């Protein structure tokens, strides 16, 4: 009954581990891929008011114009990129839908898409659902999990239709400076490749300023589908609002699919997102808190022997267990059963990551502190 390509979708390999964690709600979970903050009150209040005022209809397939205008202004202000709210911006149901629409809009069956590993789990699956073929560009620990330009040159020779970039990235927290992005673009610009740039963690960048891929140059902007949203920086995961920006032709095609498949994102969430654009102070307070936790947790993980590179953004540490004779899944199982702390084993994010775990610091300092004590305890008794 089920389509072949859906049947063939690779299972995550840690399904059982996930089920185990879901059955133990009393654990301290560092396995959560979303903010621990509740959406700032002014945004929630706006959503409540929207319901009270009777905003319960569909919106245009492109999303509320006011929100598109707000997104356009924000991108202009933050990155000096100019997207026309009328034709070059589409409001999506989270970045996830933006990615799905982008892939469906550009892929013919068998088209190749480069996914940079370690990757966010949805990328390969969504490519395959859209009948594309995944080519993995595997980054290395010794390169700090950043794209190696020589490897990129090799992969480009395979004539991919698109590449998915994600920075700051899940699960590594790795990001790129303007110069590094220029070097990447130098290679990509010579080919006819669409860049799908998932910048959903842009607000959670802690050192250098985030550089938007479309801001590199005119040609880069024309070839980029910029994906972003409100889930992470604004702590609005459950509202499900994102946006896609790109060339008129691409946004047109994505909107066309949207007009049949989803129609639009929830109007209440879109109104809340318009308010979120004004909540700069709330965003920067949350960023400051993540930054503080990052400093604490990275130092502590390294101290107990889990080698962890300082992540430049997002709220994840990708820590190495190589000093210890245990693979990540066994370690995660032991940590869960014996110490009641949950982390995500690396194999969820790509091949060859069996000695890494993803630790999310979207959790209170008290919990992070307690977790480090328990992790240290386990490591000492391995």
């Amino acid at each position, binding site marked *: 009954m089920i389509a072949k390509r859906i049947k063939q979708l690779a299972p995550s390999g840690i399904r059982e581990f996930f089920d185990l964690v879901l059955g133990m709600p009393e654990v301290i979970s560092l396995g959560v891929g979303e903010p621990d903050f509740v959406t700032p009150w002014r945004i929630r209040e706006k959503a409540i008011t929207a319901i009270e005022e009777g905003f319960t209809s569909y919106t245009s397939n492109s999303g509320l114009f006011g929100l598109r205008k707000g997104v356009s202004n924000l991108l202009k202000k933050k990155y000096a990129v100019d997207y026309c709210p009328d034709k070059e911006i589409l409001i999506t149901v989270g970045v996830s839908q933006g990615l799905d629409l982008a892939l469906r809009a550009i892929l013919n069956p068998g088209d190749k898409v480069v996914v940079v590993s370690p990757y*966010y789990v949805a990328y390969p699956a969504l490519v395959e659902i859209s009948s594309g073929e995944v080519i993995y560009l595997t980054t290395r620990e010794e390169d700090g999990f950043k794209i190696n330009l020589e490897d990129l040159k090799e992969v480009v020779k395979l004539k991919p239709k698109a590449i998915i970039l994600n920075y700051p990235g899940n699960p590594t927290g790795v990001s790129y400076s303007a110069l590094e992005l220029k070097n990447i673009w130098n290679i990509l610009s010579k080919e006819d490749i669409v860049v799908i740039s998932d910048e959903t963690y842009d607000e959670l960048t802690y050192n250098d300023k985030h550089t938007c891929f479309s801001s590199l140059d005119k040609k880069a902007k024309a070839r980029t589908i910029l994906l972003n949203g409100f889930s992470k920086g604004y702590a609005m995961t459950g509202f499900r609002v994102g946006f896609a920006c790109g060339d008129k032709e691409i946004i047109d095609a994505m909107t066309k699919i949207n007009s049949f498949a989803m129609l639009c994102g929830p109007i209440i969430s879109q109104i809340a997102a318009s308010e979120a654009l004004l909540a700069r102070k709330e965003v920067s307070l949350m960023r400051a808190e993540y930054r503080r936790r990052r400093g*604490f947790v990275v130092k502590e993980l390294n101290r107990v022997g889990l080698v962890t590179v300082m992540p430049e953004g997002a709220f994840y540490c990708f820590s190495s267990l190589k000093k210890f004779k245990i693979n990540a899944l066994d370690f995660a199982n032991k940590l869960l059963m014996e110490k009641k702390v949950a982390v995500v084993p690396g194999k969820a994010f790509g091949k060859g990551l069996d000695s890494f775990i993803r630790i999310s610091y979207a959790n209170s300092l008290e919990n992070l502190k307690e977790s480090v004590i328990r992790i240290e305890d386990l490591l000492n008794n391995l």
Partner: protein
Amino acid sequence: MEDILEFLENNARISVEDLVKLTGKEKKDIQRTIKSYEKKGIIVKYRTVINRQKIKADQGVSALIEVKITPQKDVGFDSVAERIYRFPEVKSCYLLSGTYDLLLFVEGKDIQTVASFVSEKLAPLNLVKGTATHFMLKKYKEDGVVLVNESRNKRLPITY
């Protein structure tokens, strides 16, 4: 070193070792800074916020009291205020702009205790022109912390 104040304000029991980890500063610098804050009166005291509503017995009562007073030559409100805030029943005392002058937070073991403080000690003072006492019925939020059942953290324990 202002972030030390922020950490302490949030958790007065935070250890110096944790402050070292959180701020990346030297232990002796942190200790010296805290000492100097204490000496200068920037750190006034270390206290615990207690949700007394959760303790069934011995809750006591609290009241907010608006006080109108007559300012005096040269010293303004200060000396009258001092006469008032010296009473141990007065937990906090603020001078405000608006329709009255002083706002007091008063605690007592029951309504009678507070009432007699107002009628026997506060109101009879020469320079007090009038008082209005408001008894507190319920505390929803104190020092930035919501005290009533706040539902939180409905996240799934594990997600990508």
